[in-house]
């Protein structure tokens, strides 16, 4: 599944990074501590977080992520959107909880192989 399919299928909104929505999703991860995510999020994943600060974009780029999802209607900071546009990292908004979206992703066959691969 590509990020664009995820948006269409589960009703997410792209707040930024719309040029990067054609990437294939290779897994999912939930986390709010940046160093923990850096160590454990699978390469190519969709990352669900409550962090809205611009630091999340570098983590996503360096971890080669497909997209960042902010659940519960959290809004990204303006600087976060500017960076995400520049780095082509989609920032997606979801009105439900991370738990709910993670369940949907898993149900759609997005499972992690091994952590970090």
């Amino acid at each position, binding site marked *: 599944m590509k990020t664009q399919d995820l948006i269409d299928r589960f009703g997410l909104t792209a707040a930024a990074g719309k040029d990067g929505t054609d990437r294939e999703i290779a897994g999912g991860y939930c986390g*709010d*501590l*940046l*160093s*923990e995510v*850096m*160590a454990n999020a699978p*390469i190519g994943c969709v990352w669900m*977080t409550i*962090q809205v*600060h*611009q*630091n*999340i*974009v*570098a*983590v996503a*780029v*360096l*971890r*080669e992520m497909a997209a960042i999802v902010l659940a519960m209607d959290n809004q990204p900071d303006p*600087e976060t959107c500017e960076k995400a546009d520049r*780095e082509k990292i989609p920032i997606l908004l979801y009105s439900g909880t991370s738990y709910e979206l993670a369940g949907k992703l898993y149900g759609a066959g997005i499972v992690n192989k091994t952590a*970090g691969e």
Partner: protein
Amino acid sequence: MAALKKSFQLKSRDFMHAGEASISVQNMLKQIGIEPALIRRVAICAYEGEMNAVTHGENGNFRIEVNTDKIILDISDEGPGIEDIEKAMEKGFSTATEEYREMGFGAGMGLPNMETNSDRMDIESEKGQGTRVVMRFSLSPGSRKNET
């Protein structure tokens, strides 16, 4: 083969630019054909070192060198230094302020991540004297495919 070198200045608390040195290193390693698994390890170390210099340090300096047989990341700053290195290395130990924790820092995993993902890490630091972290990654022969 000539060594490739690049360096960056890191400004304390400059979150507008924090992460750019690491991303630039990631791109450079991709360009010269380093294997993806190694790039990912270097990316983690670069990010954690860069963020520590930006959040805990002052006047950071970030240098990378790619030789035939190894990659060296050398990240130093003139900040407050680390009082107890052994303690700082413990997973979960962090002096991050509430403000930093709200930004997602403060898991106390940066230094442990750097140690796990490098082949060798050396820290020099003293209270009031700044901090220098040098990480080395060995390159197997031929891993710099697209040499310039």
